[in-house]
């Protein structure tokens, strides 16, 4: 990863001095490492400072600040955009844990704004309306870290090539239906296993098939994993959902609508945090699943017209 990073930077910007390349590479490394610190944790969607404080008290390792949670975005329809910076700042002031925020796919000015207000992580997210139907943001131009969604290995590696320092499944946000997160996680894992099983001389063709740089394929082949942290996101509504994603290989989970669309958000948030730690212990997850009140109602995948996961490939 590191050699590729230097090579690509040097090739793309020939006049760039090595010292500057080194600074950019260091920032990217630090950004990947922040994601490492979030591992084993739960990142919760919040829409105001009060929810942010509830999330922090319940044990969230970070919060995602947004004006409307995905379930409401889906219900309201229309174009959905980056949140009001003032609202995001209110959440930054309310908690001490990292604060993330979403920008539209390809909307690099929204990303510039989020960087300007000192956000800890940007989610270039399919949950918002895409601003560009061809290009994602060139995330190598930013110092702030990005997390991006991916349905399969090719998508994950393309986002990493563009500078993403963390990956999540796309799931199908706002539905409370975990089926797509499961599908994406299994797909990425299966493709990693396939790449790992290839002979060295087969990796060139694999890179062509996946439409990604050869160096990234080689890394996946050698390390048998993505070169960045991989979380599950989309449709996670219960402690069992969270534990399911962890058993499938997620390194942590994002919970969006599942918490603040449920009957008792604080209790559910706390239970999901603990289910992520004890994901291999059914007796603990059973206890955690008791008396949580009403889960979010949810919509089945087949009942929805708009598949957000199909945004951005």
């Amino acid at each position: 990863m590191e050699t590729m990073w230097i090579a690509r930077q040097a090739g793309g910007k020939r006049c760039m001095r090595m010292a500057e390349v080194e600074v950019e590479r260091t920032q990217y490394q630090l950004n990947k490492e922040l994601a490492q610190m979030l591992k084993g944790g739960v990142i919760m969607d919040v829409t105001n400072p009060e929810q942010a404080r509830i999330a922090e008290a319940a044990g969230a390792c970070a919060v995602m600040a947004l004006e409307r949670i995905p379930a409401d975005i889906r219900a309201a329809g229309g174009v959905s955009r980056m949140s009001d910076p003032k609202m995001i700042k209110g959440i930054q002031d309310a908690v001490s844990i990292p604060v993330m925020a979403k920008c539209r796919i390809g909307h690099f000015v929204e990303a510039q704004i989020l960087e300007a207000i000192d956000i800890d992580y940007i989610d270039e997210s399919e949950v918002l309306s895409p601003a560009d139907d061809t290009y994602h943001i060139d995330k190598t131009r930013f110092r702030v870290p990005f997390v991006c969604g991916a349905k399969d290995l090719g998508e994950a590696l393309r986002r990493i090539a563009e500078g993403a320092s963390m990956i999540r499944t796309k799931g199908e946000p706002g539905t409370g239906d975990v089926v797509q997160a499961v599908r994406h996680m299994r797909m990425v894992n299966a493709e990693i296993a396939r790449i790992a099983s290839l002979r060295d001389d087969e990796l060139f063709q694999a890179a062509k098939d996946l439409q990604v740089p050869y160096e990234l394929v080689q890394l996946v082949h050698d390390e048998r994993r993505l070169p960045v942290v991989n979380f599950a996101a989309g449709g996670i509504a219960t402690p069992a959902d969270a534990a399911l994603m962890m058993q499938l290989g997620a390194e942590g989970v994002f919970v969006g609508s599942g918490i603040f669309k449920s009957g008792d958000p604080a209790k559910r948030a706390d239970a999901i945090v603990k289910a992520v730690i004890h994901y291999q212990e059914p007796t603990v997850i059973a206890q955690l699943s008791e008396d949580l009140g009403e889960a979010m109602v949810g919509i089945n995948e087949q009942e929805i017209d708009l598949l957000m996961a199909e945004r951005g490939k």
Partner: protein
Amino acid sequence: MNVAVLAIQGAFVEHENMLRRLGVTCVELRGASDLRKPFDALVLPGGESTVQGKLLRELGMSDDIKQRIADGMPVLATCAGLILLADRVVNDPRTYLRTLPIVVRRNAYGRQLGSFRTLGDVHGIDAHGKGAFPMEFIRAPYVEEVGDDVEVLAKIDTHVVAVRYHNQVATAFHPELTGDTRVHELFLDMIEK
């Protein structure tokens, strides 16, 4: 030699990988029942101190761990771990194990855009090889005040970023994210004594 790594949230696998490289067997602590397993030393990894602190308490692990540290068990704490050990946090009312007489500032360098990498000298690791130590600061704390008998192991600019107090070594940076094993070796030497 068994070293327990608190494995409830954060970058615990990175510590385990480094300890295994040094020939150590790791025990993961995920709940109170894991504390019954035999171990000779303890690592408190990086992550979010608010999450780790809350879970330590609610999973019923705090008192046992605190007692072991008080009884002299060697402990290595990095970043969030340093906050868990600190007696007081200047900008946060929450405190946790409080076995280390230092006052720390959380997120002392600001948010992620304030994260940085540098090289610095760590006192006491010279025996394991010469040269500056690579230090990764990720939304890191630093130490504002040290109590009696607390040895300052490293400073960056004017701020204390690594300390030793009898059996406790704590760093604001992340030795587990580098390829340099010297801080971990310093820690393991404390077990053998």
